[in-house]
């Protein structure tokens, strides 16, 4: 008896989910719920539509709120239509709505009506990194003095662990110029954007989020640390790109990018850190 009833609540919740998860109420599912739900006054489909609408509006609000620059680039109406499609095609799989929207950059990158705005997906990536950085856990920052006492020979084997608010975005578009235009409310169509890419760093320092454009050696260094490489493993590439290790490390320690370190064992060229 209990087993039968248990199946019934599960089935009811599945049917309810299916009835309200689309762009419109699913009539077949509503019909399946008749008899289970009371009827009278406002029609059952209209009653269930209140839930469908609440969910859609709640999800859309969360996504629009996370991508203000994308919205300013495409306009409110276009954004609303894109987000409505996104919400129906990619409903939340997490309970925390603040972290809903992680696949929106990919979605907007392949959303046919936005095809001509080729930098949109990269701007969305930047904004998602911003969103994640905003909610990233608080961490104690590693001070440069904590590695100053290490044996100089050991420094080559050092791998610095980056904070959880840190993200790198490598774009073929001048994201820094696009961000400036969005922030100053300029019409992007009237700007002559530079024909270059941009490597962007997002990080949170003292509770405030920041965005920096990095040089190629800076990007190489930080990307290496993020994947757990040792300094020795990225050193040659940094030098080839014209970078100098000392100033690079000073800069990133100054920004509070690191929260820990590991000393790689054995051949430092092998990235065997886990």
């Amino acid at each position, binding site marked *: 008896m209990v087993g039968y009833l248990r199946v019934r609540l*599960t089935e009811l*919740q599945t049917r309810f989910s299916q009835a*309200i998860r689309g762009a419109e109420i699913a009539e077949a599912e509503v019909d399946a719920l008749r*008899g289970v739900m*009371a009827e009278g*006054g406002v029609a059952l489909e209209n009653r269930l539509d209140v839930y469908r609408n609440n969910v859609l509006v709640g999800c859309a609000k969360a996504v629009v709120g996370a991508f203000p620059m994308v919205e300013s680039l495409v306009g409110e109406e276009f954004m609303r239509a894109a987000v409505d499609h996104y919400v129906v095609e990619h409903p939340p*799989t997490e*309970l925390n709505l603040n972290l809903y929207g992680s696949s929106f950059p990919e979605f907007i990158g392949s959303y046919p009506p936005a095809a001509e705005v080729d930098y949109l997906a990269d701007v969305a990536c930047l904004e998602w990194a911003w969103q994640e950085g905003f909610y990233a856990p608080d961490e104690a920052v590693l001070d440069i003095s904590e590695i100053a006492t290490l044996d100089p020979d050991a420094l080559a084997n050092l791998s610095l662990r980056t904070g959880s608010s840190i993200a790198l975005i490598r774009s073929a578009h001048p994201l820094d110029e696009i961000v400036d235009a969005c922030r100053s409310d300029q019409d992007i169509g009237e700007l002559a954007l530079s024909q270059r890419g941009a490597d962007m760093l997002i990080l949170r320092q003292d509770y*405030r989020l920041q965005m920096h454009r990095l040089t190629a050696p800076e990007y190489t260094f930080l990307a290496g640390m993020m994947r757990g490489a040792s300094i020795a493993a990225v050193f040659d590439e940094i030098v080839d790109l014209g970078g100098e290790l000392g100033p690079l490390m000073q800069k990133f320690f100054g920004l509070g990018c690191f929260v820990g370190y590991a000393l790689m064992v054995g051949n430092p060229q092998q990235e065997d850190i886990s």
Partner: protein
Amino acid sequence: MGSDSRSRPIAGRPLRSAGIGLRAAHYEDVVEQRPGVGWLEVHPENYFGGGLPRRHLHQAREHYPLSLHAVGLSLGSTEAVDAAHLGQLKELVDLFDPFLVSDHVSWSASGNAHFPDLLPLPYTGETLERLIANLDRVQNVLQRQILVENPSTYVSYAIDEMVESEFMNEVACASGCGILLDVNNVFVQSYNHSFDPFEYVARIRPDLVGEIHLAGHTERSFDDATLLIDTHNRHVGPEVWALYEFACERFGEVPSLVEWDSDIPDLGVLVAESDKAQEIVERSLVGGVSAGAAD
């Protein structure tokens, strides 16, 4: 575990009954102006992780008792409560020492589908069993009693085995949790499902009520009839104030909260609503019966 938790002295318990929901728009105003409200309530999900929201909450907590009102445990799902979500709630409970922790008699997850809404449950023995199992887990992990709130619903179930007020009493008695009675939700429900809201409140066992919620609602018309929608976007309506007064006479001095979640007004407007609630509580204590006073 209910009686253990209630008899334990709770740090940061409010001296004044009426509080307000703290929303991001008011972070700075609350800390700078320090309005004379009794306590603050937040949705813990907005403070998962770290950063600025949590810093603001620490600042507010220095001046006010705090209640954590969760929206994401999905206590009525047939699946178990999400361990990661519960773990993050536990972290906040340990950090902020709230005097109340609550969630809803509703569900918002089914399989992989998650809905940012409080979906309605049928009031059956099976639902009761699911809720009790999930509440046991939550209260064991948090090591404290929580409260569960009656929802606003727009559909009701023909398969119900009991009325909602009775169901709320059953959930609380069987799990040791308390009841967060949202009188706006009772009113919205009574309109949408045609019952007497005063009779509902009268059926709730006074000793189980640990908190009362107040909020505004909106009427929405369809071709055939109208529904009330729990929108939290305006002043508390006169019918809801009347129901609140009735509840205060019955339950005594219970922490009461005014919620306002969209079209958020200036802090002063929200504080004035909370002051109105405080006046009603105090009036009921002078003139009425304080049958449910917890302490």
